[in-house]
């Protein structure tokens, strides 16, 4: 990783994403599963919220608005859930792919090539972009068909922009786990823990003002917090491009910090894997 990332490495990065996509295409049933969850689970939470609030009782809605800045409970929950799906794909996806490569034996074959180590680290995650946008589309269609909420066109465009802006930081975060696979093999329990912690901290299903002060501070250092807040701002509060610029700026800074940490971590763990022979073990 201490060698230059060349144009040939960039082509290899795209090829890695392409190979991953080709594999994904050969399991079409997975796409069906991806429709089911983003609809079912948030719908349950929305119905639960409606029950708790006396089905839109003005006093309850006002209490929610004072904490979240919106009365659009349905979209609030669905946007949070889209974030949760993205987090799951990110935290599980690349690490799982690298782990699969390690178990099947393809990881050693990839590491025998002169390609930059950035490619096996980030390449497989490229295909996850498809899942992310797919989830967003499913969420948009679900809130319209099931709850009659129509998303504003401007908000949709800005949501896509926020997603793109959040990707580097989010993927850098996900790559901590793929790097850890090199040295530790199975990282499933760590992924479960971190996903749970992030769901709690980053305001997936509730506004982060509900958290204690120290937890809110921690949430400020996490990319999902800014992504989900910015999405809610443009879809629920009519925020424009200028309003979300601060969030995009923070996401850029976090991308640099998390990306540098991911690369450093990968270097240390790869060196350790080369000492211990973990690359070929499972």
């Amino acid at each position, binding site marked *: 990783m201490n*060698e230059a990332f*060349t144009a*040939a*490495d960039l*082509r*290899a990065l*795209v*090829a*890695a994403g*392409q*190979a991953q996509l*080709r*594999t994904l295409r*050969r399991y079409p049933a997975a796409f069906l599963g991806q429709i089911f969850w983003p609809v079912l689970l948030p719908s349950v939470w929305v119905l639960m919220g409606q029950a708790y609030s006396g089905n839109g009782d003005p006093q309850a809605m006002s209490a929610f608005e004072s904490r979240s800045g919106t009365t659009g409970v349905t979209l609030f929950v669905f946007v949070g859930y889209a974030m949760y799906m993205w987090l799951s794909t990110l935290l599980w996806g690349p690490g799982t792919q690298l782990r699969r490569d390690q178990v*099947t*034996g*393809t990881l*050693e*074959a*990839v*590491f*025998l*090539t*002169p*390609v930059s180590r950035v*490619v096996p680290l980030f390449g497989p995650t490229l295909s996850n972009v498809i899942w992310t946008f797919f989830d967003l589309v499913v969420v948009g269609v679900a809130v319209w068909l099931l709850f009659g909420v129509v998303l504003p066109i401007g908000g949709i465009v800005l949501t896509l922009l926020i997603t793109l802006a959040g990707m580097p930081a989010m993927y850098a975060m996900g790559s901590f786990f793929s790097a850890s696979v090199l040295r530790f093999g199975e990282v499933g329990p760590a992924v479960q823990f971190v996903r749970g912690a992030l769901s709690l901290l980053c305001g997936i299903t509730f506004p982060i003002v509900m958290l204690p002060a120290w937890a809110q501070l921690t949430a400020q250092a996490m990319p999902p917090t800014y992504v989900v807040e910015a999405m809610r701002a443009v879809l629920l509060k009519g925020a424009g491009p200028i309003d979300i610029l601060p969030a995009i700026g923070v996401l850029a800074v976090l991308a640099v910090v998390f990306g540098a940490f991911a690369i450093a971590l990968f270097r240390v763990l790869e*060196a350790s894997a*080369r*000492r*211990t*022979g973990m*690359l*070929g073990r499972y």
Partner: protein
Amino acid sequence: MTDPAVEASGLVKEFEKGRRTIWQRLLRRPDQRTTFRAVDGIDLRVETGEIFGLLGPNGAGKTTTMKMISTLLEPTAGTIRVLGIDVAREPRKVRARIGAMLSGERSLYWKLTARENLEYFAALYHVPPHETKERIERCLVAVKLQDRADDYVERFSTGMRQRLALARALLPDPPLVILDEPTVGLDPQASRDLRDRVRELKRQGRTVLLTTHYMEEADQLCDRIAIVDHGQIVALDTPAELKRRIRAEEVVRFEIGLTGDEAPLLGRLSSSASIARSERQNGTLSVTAHCASARDFVPTMFDAAQSIGATVRHVEVVPVSLEDVFISLTGRALRE
């Protein structure tokens, strides 16, 4: 003068044996792991253009050596230069010049077609885009898989997957090809086929470094062989020279059924042959003897057996093989 294809000096690789749990670390309990030396001071020089084999039983340290040469493992001590390049200093440069097939059929993406696998790896090997198509075709033809290029790898036989793994190793057009147990798990026909491909690589002027535990394969393919045991090279020479080390023309393998002590029998036989190996199991003594003439030795062996009331159950006379060389050097058979 050209650099040797591979030059390794004082190569050592140690692994930790046993485990240390997180709990033990937290409690700061003493580390009770021991060190296991998989490679123990190997010196090696592979000349350009030769087929060089590492022959030894499973666990001898062959694959560990290959992995260090191909940059996958970091040596505990020692230096390696591949085509004149220091592996520790410039691993990426080394990887660009070698084609390696280390985990055979396991190293392919089974849900992709043969062509898709090669397209992906061509990008990883930095093959220029305008050359990729032609290079892939050439590699597929080289391993005779051009007719199955667009089939999923999961539908291939083991032999076809091994050949595809070899095609992948050839993608960077490497001057050095590293093959770890290339014919393991293959039927005789597929093995023969793959060996033909390896000979073709030599004809193309490439250097081939391979490991095997099949003595016939090493004998038929390699220009020079290093016999490896317990992480050390115990002999290194051409197959013919290695076999000449055994001062015998023929090898007699026989089995004798006996109830008493075998020492007197072996003592008597050792006056007319060199007893390379003897093993007793369930009343059967299996012996490998190296002799100048089986025609003289076999009657002596029958007489000796008869004199102690033992029965000769099986006799086999074979020419000297690398297996015999291994036995004479280590006292064990390759498969033990």
